[in-house]
Every structure is written in structure tokens, then in C-alpha cells.
């Protein structure tokens, strides 16, 4: 009992309470009932008045019990790119022996409702986030809110943790295939093709094998020159005309290389970044922080 009370008061301190507009309605209703009871001395009115009063005042502790046993932690949320929509993921765990109801998880200018969270369970909530610029960012000031049970009190449980992330440069510019075409001359001319592969949208239109298309398969010709793994070296200075565009271009190429499993290097103003030595995320982070 004492332990429960202690836990309750600890939770109580964590939670902020604010009366809602509906509480004003309840106050008016209470006043009306009191006037009715006072004028006529009807005990039925007194009973109704006391019930409404008790409900209104027990709403806050019940709400605290509903919200207070929830905990939230940020979980791995994937990559973020400048000016592109991403999701911050929060793991909301209900540590209470009973389900929690009508919770809203608020992030920076977004909120997600969570109708019910069963006892001992957790839910992953994705909050939309679009970084404005590349570089490090901090996602903070998150909180959980609930008006359970009567909408008379808005209870807010701040989430102490904050998410430290990095927004990579916005991937945009020329496609990797364009870059490779420019490099084509270095690998000889097209001759007989060595086989077929399924068209994935990145290959040249001229590579489409029309004979297989006629059979109902969308295939492209595979040339020996393409099987050649080029030693891709992207030059920071040659990538585009200004730094932001260069970083965006390099980011796009790095991502495409990752997709095609192509090793690459980036010649930066101060040294090289190599996919053989560093992970893609490390390379992207270096670009983001440039």
C-alpha cells in the first residue's frame, strides 16, 4: 500500500496537469446543481452533485495512473536526409498491470494517437520528421499526453530522452548511370552481349532486349563491359558547381553504389573516403558534417 502510494506520488511529480475547457463546463454544471440543491434542499440533487464532484476530482489520479506508468525510449529510426521525410521511432512501453488508454504521443510539431496499450506491452510510434539542413540534429521536447478519463484534465508526461541524429545531405543530382556513361569510353565499345538480366529501371533504354519483351519478359542485355567493376572515384570538386550541390551529388552516388554493391572512393578536398575502409553511414556522416 505504502509502496503504491510512493510510486503514485513519484509519478504525480513527473506529470503536468492542466485543466481543459471541458472542466469549465463541469464547474458550471456543479454550480448549477449546487444552486438547485441550495434552493430546494433536494438530496437527490446533492447526491448527483457529490458524484459529479467526486468524478471530476478522481479524474486526475486515474489519469495519472493511466499515463504515469508509461515509458518511452527512442529506437533506431533509419537514415535522415535533409529536406526529405523521415520517421523518428519511439518505443512506448506500458509498465502498468492494466491497459493504458487514449494516449497521444507528441513530437516536434507532430502527434500520433495511441488508442490502447495493453499491460506489459509496447508499441512503436513513428513521428514524421523532415530535417531542414544536413548535419547533426537533436529531436527533443517530446511528450505523451492524455485526457483520459473525463477530458477535464490534460495530463502531460514529458519524455526526458532526446534523439541525437544526423541528417545526410539531400541526395540529388545526376544518376550514377550518367556518371558511368561518361566513363564508358574508358572501357571500350559495345559488342555482343554476354547475357540477360531483369530490367530494374536503372539501365539504359537502349539495352532493352526486345526479343524477350515480345515474350512477355522485360529484360536488358548484359555486356561484358558492364560486368567490369570500375574503380569509381568521385571527385568532390568535379561533382557539381557548389558545395551543397556537390555533397548532394556525392550522397546520391554513394547511395546508388551501396544499392549496386559497387565499391567507390570519394576524393574530398582533404583526403579520400573509401567504401572499402569505411561504412556507407560513416561516409555519409562525413559528407553531412562537411
Amino acid at each position, binding site marked *: 500500500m505504502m509502496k503504491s502510494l510512493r510510486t503514485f506520488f513519484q509519478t504525480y511529480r513527473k506529470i503536468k496537469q492542466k485543466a481543459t475547457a471541458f472542466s469549465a463546463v463541469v464547474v458550471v454544471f456543479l454550480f448549477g446543481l449546487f444552486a438547485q440543491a*441550495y434552493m430546494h434542499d433536494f*438530496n437527490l440533487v446533492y447526491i448527483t452533485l457529490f458524484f459529479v464532484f467526486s468524478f471530476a476530482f478522481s479524474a486526475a489520479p486515474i489519469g495519472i495512473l493511466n499515463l504515469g506508468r508509461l515509458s518511452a525510449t527512442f529506437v533506431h529510426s533509419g537514415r535522415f536526409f535533409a529536406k526529405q521525410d523521415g520517421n523518428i521511432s519511439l518505443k512506448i512501453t506500458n509498465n502498468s498491470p492494466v491497459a493504458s488508454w487514449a494516449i497521444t504521443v507528441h513530437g516536434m510539431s507532430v502527434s500520433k494517437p495511441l*488508442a490502447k496499450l495493453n499491460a506489459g506491452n509496447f508499441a512503436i510510434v513513428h513521428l514524421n520528421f523532415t530535417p531542414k539542413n544536413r548535419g547533426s540534429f537533436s529531436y527533443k521536447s517530446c511528450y505523451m499526453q492524455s485526457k483520459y478519463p473525463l477530458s477535464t484534465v490534460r495530463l502531460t508526461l514529458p519524455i526526458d530522452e532526446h534523439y541525437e541524429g544526423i541528417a545526410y545531405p539531400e541526395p540529388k543530382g545526376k544518376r550514377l548511370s550518367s556518371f558511368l556513361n561518361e566513363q564508358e569510353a574508358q572501357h571500350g565499345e559495345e559488342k555482343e552481349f554476354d547475357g540477360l538480366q531483369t530490367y530494374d529501371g536503372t539501365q539504359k533504354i537502349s539495352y532493352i532486349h526486345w526479343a524477350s519483351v515480345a515474350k512477355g519478359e522485360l529484360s536488358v542485355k548484359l555486356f561484358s563491359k558492364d560486368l567490369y567493376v570500375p574503380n569509381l572515384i568521385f571527385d568532390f570538386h568535379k561533382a557539381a558547381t557548389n558545395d551543397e550541390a556537390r555533397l548532394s551529388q556525392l550522397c546520391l552516388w554513394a547511395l546508388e553504389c551501396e544499392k549496386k554493391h559497387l565499391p567507390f572512393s570519394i576524393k574530398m578536398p582533404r583526403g579520400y573516403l573509401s567504401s572499402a575502409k569505411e561504412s556507407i553511414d560513416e561516409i555519409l556522416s562525413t559528407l553531412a558534417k562537411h
Partner: protein
Amino acid sequence: MKFLALLQNTNWKLTRIFPLTLLDMAYITVLLPIFIMLKAPMMLFSLIVLVILFFKKSPASKKLIFFIFMLGSLAIYLSLYGAFSFSGLSRLKIFLELLIYVLIVVVSMQRLTREINLYLIVSPFLFLALSLFFYHGMLMLVYVVFEVFFLLWMILAHRMEGSLVESFRSSMLMFMYSLPWVVVLFIFFPRISFEHANYGFKGEVIKRMGHDGTMFIDGNALLVPSERIVMEVGFEGEIPAEDTLYFRGSILYVDKKDHWKPLPAYPKRETRVNRPLQGKVSNYKVTLYPTQKRWLYLLDMPKKEVKGSTLDRDLITRVDKNIKEPVHYLASSLLSHTFYDVLDEATYRASTLYYKDRNPQAYIVAQEIKNKYPLKEKRASAVVDFFKAQALTYTLQPDALDINRSTDSFLFDKRRGYCVHYASSFVTMARMTGIPSRIVTGYKSDKSESLDNYLVVKEKDAHAWAELYINSQWVRFETTTTARYIDMQNQLNSIQQENPTLQSINLYLMYVKYQVETWILYYSHARQLQLLDYAKKNPMFIVVFVLSLIVLLIITFVIIAYLRRPMYSSEALYILQPLLKSLKKRGYTRKKEESIHQFLLHYISDNPQHLEVKEIDILYEKILYASNTSKLELVLLKKLIKKSLATH
């Protein structure tokens, strides 16, 4: 809790309710008592709206809403037609009716749009508050508590996205949280309000019979063998002895041949000589139902006047206006069959007047007694003996008396009658012997209609008796005891009418109703002071009271703990919990994605020596996947778990 289980077993999809349906359910609940009091046009309007709502599943057009508005206005006009007078408008009831009608029309219009706004949400509470003006009985008390709970349930169902099962559980929880506060507030909240008002809402048309201030002895004699309750009396201590339960109504002096009347107002009577009454004090609380008369009934002999009434020199209690609704009063009496009085001229004349020509036979006997016994008490005893010697029969179906010589007719010819005939003849004869006498009418209660300190007085308890002035005291004489025979057939008929078990149940129900009315419906500032006073005098009462509150709190917390208990998907899983807790203590915690079987296998692989756990696992799986689970298997599982916990 069976209801909760039933709800849980109900199809989940069916228990998810849309907000508009929740609102409809709330409206139906709060409007039910209001519908009963609606006038016909308004009721017809409501039915039309209900039919439209039932068939129309899309938002109503502006034309339809306008039509409803016009129809509603017409219904209001017709419902209140005739009440629109200045005198009518001065009554709050008319205003409230108007308010309710307007509210119904406006709510109907808004509901037809199928849009929920604040107004539509708040209106059920307004209806609830308004209905409280019109009803104030036991049934409404129960209904109000139900309404309050139901509205809470609907609010929570809305907040919990229409889940009726979970919201019911939460409502119960919240209700239990609130209950101790409601009890404490109800007892201690200062009642500083005005007097209990009625504004014409609750006036009863039916009046209680049995006593009306005159006493006929001809065919108009008031005989009401009815079970209708006239009064409910709660005594502070034990109910006094049966022979003291005389509730004094009016005093009749004037013999008008076929009936007896009180003294007219014009003879100026002196106030009673204030001499303290003697007798055992009895304090009691009376609930008197509408009699449409002005008398309040107090036990013989009233000690002091009841608040708001007057007590005259004959110890008769009256109020200024006819009693048209239940009256509650605290009274105090000295249980005595006599009281001291000094007769003034008017009283003496009235109480000694008789006409010897009307009843010559009785007069001759009375003169013999008068001459034989100089002392008045001896004369009175002689009259009693004479009555006894006449072999009179007590019957509720007497033969008609010759009204021109009613006393002679009763004593010498017919010899059959009930209280009025006995009292009338006895007083006439006592006067003939020279003893000032009068008739007292009221109620003589029957102790068989009592439970603990609660006594019911019914219409059939109406009674008349005599008071004779002997040695400066008015002495009560129960004249019906002079009857030698009782018309058994007559009595049996009235006894056989009711089954004793039913009668007893009925009495218990009335007792409960009375207690609820006393302690809840009519709990007042006076009762608060009474409680406080009682607590001051009895410190043990405070201890008992505090203990009762603690018990209430404990019960509440037990119910709350029960309602907040974790819910398991099966009984077997519930039985398994002690083992899972024990394993957790040993460092084995079940992972989210892990099934019970996987978890137990994991434990068994680490602890192969714990064979019971393997047995438990097998049995649990069997119970879980068997189409029919027997109770025996569950008991066995419980035993195995117990054994396992005891071993390790």
C-alpha cells in the same frame, strides 16, 4: 462481475460503439423519467423524431430540420396551452416544463444533423438536472445513481474509442473511487439551504383516510379497512408498549345525533393550566403522508408542540395549511393515559351536555349509577361494567342503529358495532352519570406492524376512544375492550386476505424504504445536528462511525484492486502465474515473443532436475489445446504448481 464476464465474451466487434450511438444511449437513459411527465403533443413530437432518426441514416436536410422546428414549436404551444396565464407563469414548474420542451426540440434538431457539438454533449446532463426537479422518491434515487453511472460509462466508452467492455470496467473503477467521497460529502456537507421546496411538483392527489375531524355513527361512519400507510414512525429507542400507541387526532365534544363534532371556534376557551405532564418520555420522528387536513398526529400525551404547528389546550396539534404532501416532524410525548387540566366554562359545558330524551334507557341506567356511586372514578368503572354486561359484539359490519336514539339502539337493541359506536355511547352515558367526557379520534397503532424501532400506521388503524374528566385529569378509556364478543368471521376475512410471509416481506421493504427516506432522501440540517449531538453524547458512536468509514474504504480498495487486476487470456494462464513469478525471481524472465512452452523448455534445459516443471508444461499445453477442459485438469495443474513451488 458476471455481467463483466458476459460482456467480455460478447463479440468484440459488437461492443465497439460509435460516438453518436453512445450519445443516443445517454439520451435514452436521461429522457426516460422526463418522457413520463411529457404532455401528449410533446410526446407525439418526440415519437415522430425517434421514427425519423430510426429510418434516416444520413444528415437531415435544412427543410426537414425547419419542419421539425415548426412541429416542435406547435407541440410546445399545445402542451402548455392553458397554462399561459399570469398565475400559471408564476409557478416555476411551468418554466421548467417550457425549458425541457425547448431543450427537446433543439436537441432533436441538432441530432438530425448527425453532427456532435458541445451542445449535444452537454444536454444529457441538463436533462438529468432538470428531471431532479420533478421526482423525489426511492425509485428516482436508484435511477439517479444508475443515470450517473451510465453517463460516466458512456463518457469513458467515448474516450476509450467505443469499447463497452473496457469502459464498463473503468467506469466501475471510477465509481468505486468516488463512492467514499460521496458518502463523506453526503453526511458532512453543510445543508444551509432553504426549506424543502416543492413548487407544486410532488403534490399527491390521493389523501389518506381514517380521520377527518368528525365522527359519524350512522351509515356515513368512516370505516377504512385499508392497508394504505398514513404515517411511518421511527422511535429513538424501543417502540413503546402496545397500549400506549394512541396517536391523538381531534377532540369531539358536540353530539349531533348522527355524528360528533369538535367545539366550534366561537366559545372562548381559556388556555390550559401549564402543569407538567407525567409519564415516560418517547422521542420519535413521523413521516405523515398527505391527509388534506391540518392535524399532526402525536402519541398521547404530546410533550410540546412540533415546530411550525400549534398545540391547543386539548393537546391537539394543528398546522396552518392542509397537508398536501408528506410531512416529516420530530415529536416528543409523555406516555400516559391521563393529563391534568382545569376545566374552563366552555369546555365544561361542552363536555357535560347530553339529551336525556334521546336515550331514555341509557339515562335510567346512568342515573342509577350516579346515585349509587358518589365518586366519579367509581361511576366510570360502573359504566364500563355496564357495557361489559350488555354482551356487546365488536364487528366491522354492524347493523344500522336507530339514529334518533343511537346509544339506546347500540346498548340495548343491536349491540353490535365498532370503535365509533362504543366511544359515542360510552361518552353519552358517562355524561349522563355526571362525568365530563369527550371523544378522541386518531389512530391506534398495532405493534405487529413494526420492525425494530420502526412503526407503520395504516388507514385501518383509525380509531376513536373516550376521555373522561376525573379528579382534575382527563383519563383515556379504551371503550372497545368492553366488547364481550368479536365477530371472528369478520376479523378472519381481514387476516386471511394477506399471506403472513408476504406481509412480513412487505414490512421489511417498507422498513428499508423508510430508512432510505429518513437517512438519504430527507437527510437534513436537523439530522446533521442530531448526529452531531448524538456523537457528543456517545463517544463510542464516533469510533463506530470512523470504523465504518474505514471498512467502506477497505471494501472500495478491494473492489478497485479486483477491477485493476491483470486479465489473463485463460484460466490456465492465471493458475500458472505463481510459477512464472517464482521463475522470474530465479532469473528466468519470459521474453515477449516467447510462448509459455518455449519458456518452460528453456528453463527445463537449464534445470533438468526439476521434473515437475516438465509435467506442468505438458499439462498446460494439454489444457490449452484441448477442445474441452475439465475442472479436474485445472485442479491438477494448480496442485502441480503448488508442489513445484514447495519443492524449490
